[in-house]
């Protein structure tokens, strides 16, 4: 399973470098047609390149640190039983830790549901994992400024919480209906 993932990642990386090559060729071709635009393109790209390179290695170090130091078991331990406001906030916080891509979070979420964690917490946890990641917030701060980043963060936490509570209701109501239906059936057969 792990080997399989590695193979897939290597393939994706080769594909990305090939795409980069294609992008470079297309750019050179475009600039051959419009040589007078060369200066603007290189200035703009260079500006974004330096801004990215000043933070990207550090962001990767932070992500690598959390990947090794915080494990799936830690998440399970903390998210399995807390509830109420504390549970929601903890879900945001733990989801925000940089532990890898979203697909890693699905099996953790599934296991948590089986263990009896609140649906609302799981939805908040998944959404936080997808869009409130610590490294993402740092890059957002760098490129879009404190005001934009902070406002979007606060609004996201509020709305994701509302969504979590709503989905919990919908799913629990659906479950109740199902059990009622099954109960009715078995009652009839008795």
């Amino acid at each position, binding site marked *: 399973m792990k080997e399989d993932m590695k193979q897939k*990642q290597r393939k*994706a*990386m080769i594909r*990305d*470098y090939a*795409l*980069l090559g294609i*992008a470079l060729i297309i750019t050179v071709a475009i600039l051959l047609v419009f040589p007078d*635009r060369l200066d*603007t*393109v*290189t200035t*703009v*790209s260079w500006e*974004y*390149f330096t*801004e*990215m390179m*000043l*933070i*990207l*290695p*550090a*962001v*990767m*170090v*932070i*992500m*690598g*640190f959390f990947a*090794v130091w915080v494990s799936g078991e830690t998440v399970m331990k903390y998210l399995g039983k807390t509830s109420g406001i504390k549970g929601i906030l903890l879900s945001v916080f733990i989801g925000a830790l940089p532990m890898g891509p*979203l*697909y890693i979070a*699905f099996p953790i*979420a*599934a296991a948590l549901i089986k263990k009896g964690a609140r*649906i609302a917490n799981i*939805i908040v946890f998944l*959404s936080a994992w*997808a*869009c409130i990641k610590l*490294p*993402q917030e*740092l*890059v*957002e*701060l*760098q*490129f*879009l400024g404190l*005001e*934009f980043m902070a*406002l*979007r963060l606060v*609004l996201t936490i509020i709305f994701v919480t*509302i*969504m979590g509570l*709503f*989905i919990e209701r919908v*799913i629990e109501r659906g479950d109740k209906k199902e059990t009622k239906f099954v109960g009715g059936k078995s009652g009839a057969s008795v």
Partner: protein
Amino acid sequence: MSSTAIVINVLAGGCLVFALSKDRAKTKQSLKIAARSFFRILPTVLIIIILIGLLLTFVPPSEISRFVGEQSGFVGVLLVGLLGAVLHIPALLSFPLAASILKSGASVAATAAFITTLTMIGTVTLPLEIKELGKKMALLRNGLSFVIAIAIALIIGVIL
């Protein structure tokens, strides 16, 4: 160097010092992961940077703002939100891209919609999400995420 860049680098340094004081082998392992992820994301970073260079050079701000600027209103926000939902770009890279369209005339709301739908909704990971969590929960989460992403974007547009 901007103050943000300094903060991020200090934070990374802090993680490293903490890690080294705890466990050398684990630190080495985490640095290995960091280096590997860096080179894995690097080509996409460069592609996005080239794209931004071309975009800001060849597409005049008036064109960008016509489609996603202030006067494009709700429809513009919705369009950019849809684009963000279907595109599959690493979340980290949505920020420089968003900053570039903001710079060239996109509205704040449209920029926020782009980032929020891009990070919140995973069309590529949806099959996996359905498999692990069931159809109902996965579809509800992704569908409602689009609605709240648009709401968040519109509120940011009003405030900023």
